[in-house]
């Protein structure tokens, strides 16, 4: 809050949002339908980046009890997604093999 502006709008972050949306569209469009399931579990793990907000909430000095309880649940839920999301994506991808030399 640099200025006293009652309807202060974070324009810079809006730019980031819009650019990320276009970038996401271009990136996802190129993903082979073969990998749509691992793609979903990967993006799911990436969006568990919410853990950043949860850590700040839970780790702050003298957090009020409500923030502490909700922050704890949020960190737990997000870390569950981080851990299981990346691991299962890799587990799935390991199974995709081509014919030549693919039969172990």
């Amino acid at each position: 809050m640099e200025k006293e502006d009652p309807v202060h709008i974070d324009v810079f972050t809006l730019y980031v949002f819009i650019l990320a949306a276009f970038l996401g569209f271009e990136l996802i469009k190129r993903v082979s339908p073969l990998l749509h399931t691992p793609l979903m579990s990967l993006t799911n793990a990436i969006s568990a980046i919410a853990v950043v907000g949860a850590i700040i909430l839970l780790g702050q000095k003298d957090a009020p009890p409500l923030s502490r309880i909700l922050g704890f649940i949020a960190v737990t839920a997000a870390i569950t997604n981080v851990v299981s999301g990346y691991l299962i994506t890799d587990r799935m991808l390991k199974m995709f093999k081509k014919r030549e030399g693919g039969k172990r």
Partner: protein
Amino acid sequence: MSQTWVQLCYVVAAVLFILSLKWMSAPATARRGVLAGELGMLIAIAGTLARPEVVNYRGIAIAFIVGTVAGVPLAYLMPMTAVPQRTAFSHACGALAAALIGTAEYYQHTPHGFVMGAIVAETLLGFLTFTGSLMAFGKLQELLPGRPFTYRFQNWINLGIFGAALALGIFLVAFPEQRWIFPIFASLALIFGVLLIIPIGGADMPTVIALLNSYAGLSAAAMGFALNNDLLVIAGTLDGSSGFILSVIMCRAMNRSFTNVLFGAFGKVQKSAARAEQRAVRSATAEDAAEILGSSQMVIVVPGYGMAVAQAQHKVRELYDMLTRRGVDVRFAIHPVAGRMPGHMNVLLAEADIPYDRLFEMDDINSDFGQADVALVIGANDVTNPAARNDPGSPIYGMPILNVDKARTVMVIKRSMSPGFAGIDNELYYMDKTLMLFGDAKSFLGDIVKALPAAAMAA
């Protein structure tokens, strides 16, 4: 660590997330993509833990341990057939985290203006995605009935509840001090999530899962606005656009619109169309099937949700091996909405060690059915129904289908004659060239595999 270093960590993490999705485009680089994603997450978490305002580490450490203990078995013990459920559950976890952080931020800081708007968006999406994903989980896990459930004025009630939640949200942005409003707002969002999924049937699950994926991501992006954190905005938006694109692909593959999926309650309309007449079908034994398969040159397998339910993918692989060894060209035709989530069939067939260059998308293989000696349909139904092409009165008219009926012989492995999830009769089953193979997909395929060598001797 100073704020600048923390921000630099976030920049590196954002780059790694983008590379992660870029490398996800092809199987050859996909595992590198996962590694990039893991690294990005690690750097982001390390940077956050080093922030000067983060001082209380005990709670964080415990939460990390609990989350890891829950996450590892969720990744390793889940059978591949249960991946749709797991995905729905993860959407619920992610959305819950976002919603709770938003709630805590609101009660602690009571922000105004733009930030309050972001928190309202975050919690609204978060809470409705949380209950919606739990409902989807319940339906996929068959804890809840999978059929769509409809009642009078359903859409109006849903719309009304969502409208009320939205109105309260806007009111909260205008008057953040009115704290008593927030629990009502949150409850309405939670209720709306439940009501949204109640009328969704199994055939629509791929679209809905993708949509919930998108909401969960957007909720995290909204949190980025609330916390003024660009990394959250980027990662959340990437997830949001991914889910959105996937659900658009799913909708297109069914020739339906978003509104139709969410408010159409598939499988309800055609009750009147259900014909009472008994029509004759040709059924065949495993030996008959083995003989035809053994003497063909090209076989196209069409897997569907029934294959997942019967856990038949390994038997499919045995059949594939035997036929391939005899010089038969075996291909797999994957419809975009086959199964219960995008790409579901590909993962199951990959699990059974079927090389992925044998799996073909609908548009790439549809012209090949004319040359195929046999189209073997395993637990797929609506995606093979010629009514989508010929019968303007059919509820699935216009949906792109696999041209199974163009093959010389069609074999359909099916439990019984009961219509599929959408409750639509399939003309395919009554065609002269169609052989119905009644039974459990797994055991029937096993019988075919057993009968094949004998059939080879006879030939």
